[in-house]
């Protein structure tokens, strides 16, 4: 049997599969919506391009081709974003630190990611003699795979959702929850004491921050009344007088949720000031100590992709997804707005990295359990209150805002006091 025939057979059998309605409807790629008269040409451009390629195919093949195009597009776009992000991070860190950053490769260092990539690919791949070779190999692969699957449910634009799921938010966090397994595998399999310590730290850190991360978005789900990312974005459409968008971050529970979410996202993606698993001043490179060459590059890619995915989710949940901030700016395509917000959050990540010292492991877990989790739980209450009082108008609106603000700010101040009291700047005496 020739390869082409074999491929055809497998494809045909895949298509002939009895996709149960529950899955088939979920996995169906976005169909071109009819009656969307308001969307401009630019808005539909990605879909038109896709249809130009696949439009002539018969229906089942078209479905497969569309899915493949979506997958390839996501991987290509985010892989190049990763490359640019490494460059941007080094450039921005350099500027923050009074130095130019990479500027030798290409124009102003623009080819640096390419040079890094070639270096990584051609480096020798070293596996320690005592290592568990299978797990050592699997760890970066699993991590990268898990970071990529999270991209499936993020709505990138008005018509650009790769997979529409009923419980998309849950899917996202379920896939994200498994990443710590990969980090543990890397730390364990390296058979290095630093790596093992890093694995323990990663487990403790990710368990601690999973909870506030999950609790932080629940008020948003309550506000939107949906676990689907499309539903959550749809709930944030519209403006108050064409100026004030209905983004969740602009409500008291949404704002508190956003802040908690971003802090937990920093910890989940192992970024400074929560980069304990790879704290270079303590653990050399943590779970990456025994990795080199392409596996190391895969780890880095997975880490940046995870950061992108979490930022994308934060945009979707809190910052209005692909909605424009002003009604007057709606003529700009939705995916551009999504990209702008995503980049803004990513730059925030880089800025924070350039600025903060690192926490200690006990302080890290204390921050999660004694500060973020209680705040997130109270925020659930705030969210419930906000949902129950949506019909209040006029003077009651002021009351609603006042109560919600008290519910957000009060616990923050009360819980923050315990940290304030322990540590304070000191005054010094002179002999």
């Amino acid at each position, binding site marked *: 049997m020739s390869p082409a025939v074999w491929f055809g057979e497998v494809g045909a059998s895949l298509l002939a599969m009895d996709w149960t309605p529950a899955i088939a409807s979920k996995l169906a790629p976005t169909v071109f919506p009819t009656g969307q008269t308001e969307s401009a040409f630019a808005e539909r451009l990605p879909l038109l391009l896709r249809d130009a390629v696949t439009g002539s195919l018969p229906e089942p093949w078209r479905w497969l081709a569309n899915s493949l195009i979506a997958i390839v597009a996501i991987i290509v776009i985010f892989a190049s974003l990763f490359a640019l992000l490494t460059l941007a991070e080094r450039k921005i*860190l350099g500027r*923050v*630190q*009074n*130095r130019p950053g990479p500027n030798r490769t290409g124009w102003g260092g623009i080819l640096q990611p390419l040079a890094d990539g070639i270096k990584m690919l051609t480096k020798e791949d070293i596996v320690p003699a005592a290592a568990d070779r299978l797990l050592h190999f699997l760890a970066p692969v699993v991590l990268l795979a898990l970071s990529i699957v999270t991209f499936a449910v993020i709505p990138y634009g008005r018509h650009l959702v790769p997979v529409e799921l009923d419980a998309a938010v849950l899917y996202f966090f379920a896939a994200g929850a498994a990443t710590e397994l990969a980090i543990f595998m890397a730390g364990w399999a390296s058979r290095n*004491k*630093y790596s*093992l*310590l890093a694995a*323990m*730290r990663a487990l403790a850190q990710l368990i601690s921050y999973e909870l506030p991360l999950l609790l932080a978005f629940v008020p948003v789900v309550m506000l939107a009344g949906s676990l689907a990312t499309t539903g959550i974005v749809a709930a944030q459409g519209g403006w108050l007088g064409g100026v004030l968008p209905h983004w969740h971050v602009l409500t008291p529970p949404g704002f508190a949720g956003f802040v908690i979410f971003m802090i937990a996202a920093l910890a989940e993606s192992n970024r*400074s*000031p929560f*980069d*304990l698993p790879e*704290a*270079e*001043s*303590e*653990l*050399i490179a943590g779970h990456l100590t025994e990795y080199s060459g392409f596996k190391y590059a895969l780890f880095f890619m997975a880490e940046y992709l995870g950061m992108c995915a979490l930022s994308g989710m934060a945009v979707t949940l809190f910052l209005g997804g692909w909605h424009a901030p002003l009604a007057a700016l709606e003529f700009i395509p939705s995916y551009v707005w999504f990209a702008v917000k995503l980049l803004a959050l990513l730059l925030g990540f880089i800025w924070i*990295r*350039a*600025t*903060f*010292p*690192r*926490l*200690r*492991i*006990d*302080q890290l877990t204390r921050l999660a359990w004694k500060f973020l989790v209680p705040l997130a739980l109270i925020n659930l209450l705030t969210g419930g209150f906000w949902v129950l009082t949506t019909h209040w108008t006029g003077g009651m609106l002021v009351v609603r805002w006042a109560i919600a603000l008290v519910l957000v700010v009060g616990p923050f101040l009360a819980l923050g006091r315990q*940290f304030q009291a*322990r*540590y*304070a*700047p*000191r005054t*010094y*005496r*002179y*002999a």
Partner: protein
Amino acid sequence: MTTAFTPTPSGAHVRAVHDPFHGDLLEISMGPHHPSTHGVFRMMVTLDGENVVKLKPVFGYLHRNHEKLGENTSYLGSMPYTDRLDYFCSMTNNWAYALAVEKLAGQPVPERAEYLRVILAELTRLLNHTCLAGFLLQDTGASGTPLMYAFREREKILDLFEALSGSRMMCNYQRFGGCRIDATPAWLAAVRGIVDGYGAFLDEYEELITGNEILLARTQNVGVLSPALAVSAGITGPMLRAAGVDYDLRKVDGYGLYPRFDFRVPLGAHGDTYDRYMVRMLEMRESIGILRQALAAIPDGPIMDPKAKIRGFRPKPGEAYGRIEGPKGEIGFYLISDGTPNPYRYRVRPPSLINLTVLEDLCLGHTLADAVIILGSIDIVLGEVDR
């Protein structure tokens, strides 16, 4: 089954590595190739989870027979070697050595040279403390930003050193009875410019760093050094003063021209890492004051005692100990002369090594991450520890 508990001076308990009741302790070897051991220094750290239960410093990787070399070279020949002791502070090393020889030979020093020595010593203090603040923050994981700010200022001072002595770090500048090269008015003006700008840099740095909650949480109550332990271990310098003991050789000995200057000695109250950091920041501000006074008062005149003998220098038999308040603590040289061109005994009292002896006491009971910043706050340079 028995557990092995060994009490240590600080009251913490050291547990055996294979403790049948508590599972295994993890013994890791940090260094000599570790990003944050400040050179080729090694710590054998035994961890219970993340907590340090035992810490054994291992050094000697940079040992180069410094003292024996000193006994086999002429007095002048040892001067360049002292640059390499604490390579951040070659000016103060030179001064301490020159002071010891001057005591041995009863050699006076002209006033302008004394002023230049004070200026250079205080510049060295600024340089050293600035770098330390940068390194300490780097150890807490601040991605190099504070370090780069600190190094920007350090370069300015190193440029001054280069302009004066011809070398950025290995200055070899002091001589017995004076200094090697006279400072031009332009150089003094350049120093004045940098000193005037330094306060602004310190303000900027403290604005960015000192109040940061994470820094406070990481450094306060970490690595507490009690005054009693500090005194009995022979700790000197900012580390001792951070523990609250008022001991500054500039005040105690009053060597050089220090009694002429008006400055204060900041003291810590807790002896923790934060105090060690803050005492240094405050000392820098005092140094700026000293530099201002010295630059205003520096007289014209010779920089070398005309009667001083450089070549064929043979001091009369005897012994002398010269010490100054270096940036890291008391740096002292002990010399015995038998009347030959080479010293009979040449001994260095390195502050880094002696301050390092309390490392385990400071680290016990803290986490691995704390051990790293405690080491950073002790401020060691391996060239001086190992000699």
